[in-house]
């Protein structure tokens, strides 16, 4: 027993002390003047799987000359990965250095990780740990991995001043932070959020830990870099909630898309008001919508363009959403106090989920929307094979193979023809095998000349998303590198980039070193042989990368910008949600009549598909998959170009191949009034109409898609909305297509004319698409304002409930397509509504 205990003790000692012994062996008493004072997590850091933590390391210099070192952080259990930053300290000073730590994606929420931070110095060309007074200096701390739920960063306004508890009236709560906490708890999350304290992360990688930002302090908009960071955050799918009762609306102009605007009219004080809720699935009583406050509230009245209003008072927006890039801008104009009410019942017994307040019923949907889908799905999830498929060895060119085989076949044909002519077909039996052997030999010889082993190379896939302004682009790069031998590899980046390496690269240690704000390197002294994946995300500055779209009698003409690396190919227009269409090449760009929907395997018009197009098909299928939520930028033209060259590069010359999928914003030009144009269906957005009957769940408006199956009868209020640039519109003819499968049901489609339904078509058990032209003046007149409201009714089963009970299965119905195209002309609009880019 004693021996067993001794052995166990020795084993535990060996296991626990071995790293320290190794440290000691690595360390050396170097007489360095540097002093590693300590390290602490940054206030705005957040530890989530795959996120980025920010550490502040304090390093002093006790010497008389400038001294340098490298601060290195290592996560326990992830021995092959280090994050580092250079630290150069002037004599006699104590300086603070930021160190970004990339957390692995396979960490489990709730687990603790230990982070060991050391200061390494250079001694005789060897990197050793700093030793002070004979003791290796390193600091470690433990971090709890959090759930990747809605991670909110809050730029707080000023808190109400403190006062004694006995003083009356009692201290008012800090309403904005209480509203955020209440919203998080209402969404089933813990009411935890980070407070930015007047400073925002400026590096792209730092934003990876956050899904939303709440701004209640206007001071943050004084910093141009912060605005740029927010803009990039929005472009990559982040959500920003700006409380316009605290922040003047003119400060947020930089965050808006070109076709959006918001302007403060005035500020009024309200004691009593009634809210109007739109686009809500919840019906509220008048009492629930009426508010009466003892103290007046300041209500900022704004006018806006390009947003979707959820709440309003006397038609003045209270809460609205504006889609910007892949993200959304949430704006509220009513003070946070108005949104809150005391929470009477806590949703969980866990005290971590307790808050004093909850959002009022009229505001809960808006708050829930803000907290929903915290980390949007990446635009292309399955693109990783794209770069992998670029790694390969050369084979004989297709034309040579074609020539050899064509020669073989044509020789045979000639011989057969000739021998048939002279009546000696018997010779074909001898000549044909000879030709076959000669052709085989030629192919084999050609192979020997061409085929060789794999050479070291890099394959890249880039997803470039240009901001609506066309001035910046976010590049997500997925790459694969192949090397035949173990060697030292270094990936250098001269821009703000976040670099990831496949965790399977575990030989030696991969270290990411931030040498400057915008410069970083990834080093591995023993990069293993084989195929390895790595990726990076970065933003690049661009200039006017906007597609200008013009509409005429035949459809849409898209003019490409000139700043692309190579001419764009295989373009798909995604203008209205859920309706991507294939574009065909034209002078200076592309054109489409909007009828060739891009779906399934259909992404190109080419009759013969190349290998590159096959790879592109996989990416497009993933990007536009009907099962994905989000990811596709509407109002964009997707297409393929050559690689964008700004990304990280290896320290040695490696042949690089690849393609970039670019999403360019599309700006639609207003046609000349009076000139007839064809509005393709892909430009017409289908929206739900908020009416007394409520909104249908069969149609997902944001994605423009219908749900797969419905069982119950339904009456759906929908509207076709023309792009704003085409209104007012005088329609001459409308073309509607309805593809619905509704066996044993009656389907009725009607247009709303002055509030009354006017039947367009009635179908009995439809299964094939129906197309119809509408020329009735009263229906066409409805399009003048740019929208046509329709009712789509699907009846119960022909046999009623009894049929459902008796049948072996339920009989669902589903809509595959409901679209509208229009022919007509744009009318002259008033000058007040004329946009900058509109024609005079």
């Amino acid at each position: 027993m004693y021996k067993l205990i001794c052995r166990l003790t020795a084993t535990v000692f060996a296991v626990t002390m071995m790293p320290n012994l190794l440290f000691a062996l690595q360390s050396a008493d170097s007489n360095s003047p540097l002093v590693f004072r300590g390290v602490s997590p940054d206030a705005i850091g957040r530890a989530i799987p795959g996120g980025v933590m920010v550490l502040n390391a304090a390093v002093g210099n006790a010497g008389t000359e400038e001294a340098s070192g490298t601060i290195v952080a290592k996560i326990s259990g992830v021995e092959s990965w280090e994050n580092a930053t250079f630290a150069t300290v002037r004599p006699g000073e104590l300086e603070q250095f930021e160190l970004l730590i990339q957390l692995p994606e396979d960490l489990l929420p709730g687990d603790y990780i230990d982070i060991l931070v050391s200061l390494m110095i250079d001694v005789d060309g060897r990197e050793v740990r700093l030793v002070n007074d004979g003791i290796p200096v390193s600091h470690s701390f433990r971090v709890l991995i959090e759930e990747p739920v809605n991670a909110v960063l809050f730029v707080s306004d000023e808190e109400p001043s403190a006062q004694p508890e006995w003083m009356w009236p009692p201290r008012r709560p800090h309403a904005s932070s209480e509203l955020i906490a209440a919203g998080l708890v209402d969404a089933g999350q813990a009411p935890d959020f980070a407070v930015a304290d007047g400073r925002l992360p400026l590096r792209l990688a730092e934003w990876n830990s956050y899904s939303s930002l709440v701004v209640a302090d206007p001071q943050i908009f004084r910093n141009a870099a912060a605005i740029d960071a927010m803009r990039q955050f929005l472009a990559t799918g982040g959500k920003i909630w700006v409380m316009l009762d605290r922040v003047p609306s003119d400060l947020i102009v930089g965050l808006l898309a070109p076709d959006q605007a918001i302007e403060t009219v005035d500020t009024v004080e309200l004691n009593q008001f009634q809210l109007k809720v739109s686009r809500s699935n919840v019906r509220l009583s008048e009492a629930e919508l009426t508010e009466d406050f003892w103290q007046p509230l300041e209500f900022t009245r704004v006018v806006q363009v390009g947003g979707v209003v959820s709440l309003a008072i006397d038609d003045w927006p209270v809460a609205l959403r504006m889609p910007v890039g892949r993200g959304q801008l949430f704006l509220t104009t009513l003070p946070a106090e108005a949104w809150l009410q005391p929470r009477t019942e806590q949703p969980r017994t866990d005290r971590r989920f307790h808050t004093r307040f909850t959002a009022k019923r009229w505001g809960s949907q808006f708050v829930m929307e803000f907290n929903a889908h915290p980390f949007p799905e990446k635009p292309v999830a399955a693109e990783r094979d794209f770069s992998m498929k670029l790694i390969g060895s050369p084979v004989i060119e297709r034309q040579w193979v074609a020539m050899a085989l064509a020669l073989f076949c044509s020789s045979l044909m000639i011989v057969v023809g000739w021998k048939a002519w002279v009546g000696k077909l018997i010779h074909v039996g001898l000549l044909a095998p000879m030709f076959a052997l000669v052709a085989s030999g030629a192919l084999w010889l050609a192979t020997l000349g061409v085929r060789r082993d794999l050479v070291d190379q890099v394959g890249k896939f880039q997803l470039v998303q240009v901001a609506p302004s066309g001035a910046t682009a976010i590049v997500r790069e997925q790459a694969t590198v192949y090397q035949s031998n173990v060697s030292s590899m270094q990936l250098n980046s001269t821009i703000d980039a976040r670099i990831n390496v496949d965790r399977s690269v575990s030989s030696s240690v991969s270290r990411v070193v931030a040498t400057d704000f915008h410069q970083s390197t990834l080093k591995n002294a023993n990069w293993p042989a084989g195929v390895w994946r790595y990726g990076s995300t970065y933003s690049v500055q661009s200039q006017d990368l906007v597609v200008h779209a013009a509409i005429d009698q035949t459809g849409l003409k898209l003019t490409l910008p000139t700043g692309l690396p190579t001419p764009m190919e295989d373009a798909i227009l995604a203008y209205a949600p859920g309706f991507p269409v294939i574009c065909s090449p034209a002078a200076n760009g592309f054109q489409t009549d909007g009828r060739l929907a891009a779906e399934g395997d259909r992404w190109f018009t080419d009759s013969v598909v190349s290998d590159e197009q096959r790879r592109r098909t996989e990416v497009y299928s993933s990007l536009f998959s009907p099962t994905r939520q989000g990811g596709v930028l509407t109002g964009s033209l997707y297409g393929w170009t050559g690689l964008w060259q700004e990304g990280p590069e290896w320290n040695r010359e490696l042949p690089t191949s690849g393609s970039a999928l670019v999403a360019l914003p599309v700006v639609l030009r207003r046609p000349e009034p009076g000139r007839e144009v064809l509005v393709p269906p892909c430009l017409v957005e289908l929206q739900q109409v908020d009416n007394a009957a409520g909104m249908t769940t069969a149609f997902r408006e944001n994605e423009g898609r219908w749900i797969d199956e419905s069982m119950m009868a339904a009456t759906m209020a929908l509207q076709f909305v023309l792009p704003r640039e085409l209104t007012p519109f005088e329609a001459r003819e409308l073309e509607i297509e309805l593809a619905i499968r509704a066996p044993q049901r009656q389907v009725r489609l009607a247009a709303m004319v002055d509030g009354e339904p006017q039947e367009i078509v009635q179908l009995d058990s439809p299964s094939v698409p129906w197309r119809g032209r509408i020329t009735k003046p009263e229906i066409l007149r409805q399009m003048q304002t740019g929208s046509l409201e329709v009712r789509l009714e699907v009846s119960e089963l022909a046999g009623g409930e009894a049929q459902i009970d008796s049948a072996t299965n339920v009989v669902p119905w589903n809509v595959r397509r409901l679209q509208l195209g229009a022919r007509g002309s744009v009318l002259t609009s008033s000058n007040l509504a004329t946009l900058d880019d509109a024609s005079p």
Partner: protein
Amino acid sequence: MQLENLWNNPVFRRELFGRLKSPKLSFAILAVATLSAGLVLLRWPTDGNIDIVSQVAVKLFRPLTFALMIAIMMLVPPFPATSIVAERRTGTLTLLLNSPMPNWAIYFGKFASNLAIAFLLILISLPALTACVAMGGITFGDHVVPFLLVLAAMAMQYTAVGLWISARSQASDASLRATYACVLGLSIGSLGPRVLSGNVSGPVADLGRWLSSLSPMAAWQQITASQGIVADQVDASGYMEFLVASALITAVFIFLTLRKLNPIAFERPRPPQKMLDATSPSMGWRRLAYLVDPQRRKAGIPAWLNPILVKEFRTRKFGRLHWLLRLVAGCGIISLFLTALAATGTVSWGVERIAGPLVMLQLALLLLVGPSLGANLIAAEIESGGWQILRVTPVSPARILTGKLMSTVWTMLLVLFATLPGYLVMSYIQPAMSGQVNSVLISLMVAALMIVSISACVSGFCKTTAVATLTSYALVLTLFGGTLLVWLGRGQPFGPLLVERVLALNPVAAALSEMQTPGFELYNLIPLAWWIGSGLSLLAVSILAVRIWFLTRPT
């Protein structure tokens, strides 16, 4: 020495040279060469690079080898299947067997000549197979040579089987049919027990595994490392097992055929004629069984009936009542089979899985019956001289046209309706499918219409029935099968838009897409395919009408 003996074998030389002189062999050589070369070119990488992920070489090797196997299955059996029976029909077999040559020398002369032709066809595919090797990932040792061995074994096996059946048959066409049926049974049918018993242990599964060794499919899957359901099912046997099984089967059939090639065995007495007493009580049963007497005198044609229609039914083999009744009975059996298939398949596998085979079965029936009926309409009249009689009758060209067409249409409808119960069962099990079933039926009607009208149109321009039938089959198969071949090449190399446009020519593809058959579910072919199909039919009928009008004019 052995080779010299073989070369000096007069039967071998006669058979080999006789076949080498045949244009059919030259055509087969060209077909194999162009097919294999075309497949290679369709799948060859366009960017001059072969990646490490996609296994492009295997993706090329797999369809190429499959096509070559099918080619061997189709091209090898005809000669041995007709070789001995043709000798017997012409009377030369008795002369041969009574010649100084031993019967084994006669047999091996025929056997070796057929093998030589098969090897010639295999050799023609060598450039394509070398191209696969050139791509990398495919080697001669692991892939090409084993596959060539499998092809050689197939050729030997099918030759031995064909010669055995030929030695037992009385007619060439019967021998050919039986040989093809046997080849089908050996290659596909032998997999059945294994597929049905599943990948489990036990005596039944062992038997299934042994039987699956007879099929070259299992060997092919092992060589090409195919993945999939069938591959999982037949994983127990590989190409070595096939080679052994094939050698055994070849040896058995050689032995059986050699036993059969006995001059005495051919001297069979003719079965004696039987005289029946019409008054005997046993004739009662015969009268009941022969309710429809084909020899009975027919009633007059009513005025409201098109006489051409009636004439067609009365003169055509499948138009006569007793044959129609047989056809109805056959269709009834097929219908029952399809219904059972639909019922069990819909419940077990889902509509998408079962609807495809159901539609394809119907197409096969339509393709089998349609062109042979349609191609006879005018050509047979011209060939037999009946057209001259028609011309002198007061029947108008329009009445001739409608009568001829309707006689075929009714028969086709009969075939089509026989398959309806399957869909009714499907609609009952999944009521949501009722709309789609309607669309499928319309598609099949359009397909039937196309087959009839195109065949009839071709018939109007041919002087012999054989040419008309061959041309009709070629045209209809090109339309229905060719479009499906383009579909098979979807994504590599054919673009989806091209595939969709080509499939719009084929109403059966529209039916498959409507039933959401895997691979077709993405294409929107309805109602475009209906319009195109109807338009083509209308065009064909219009051309035929003009042609009939010309033909009825006095020369």
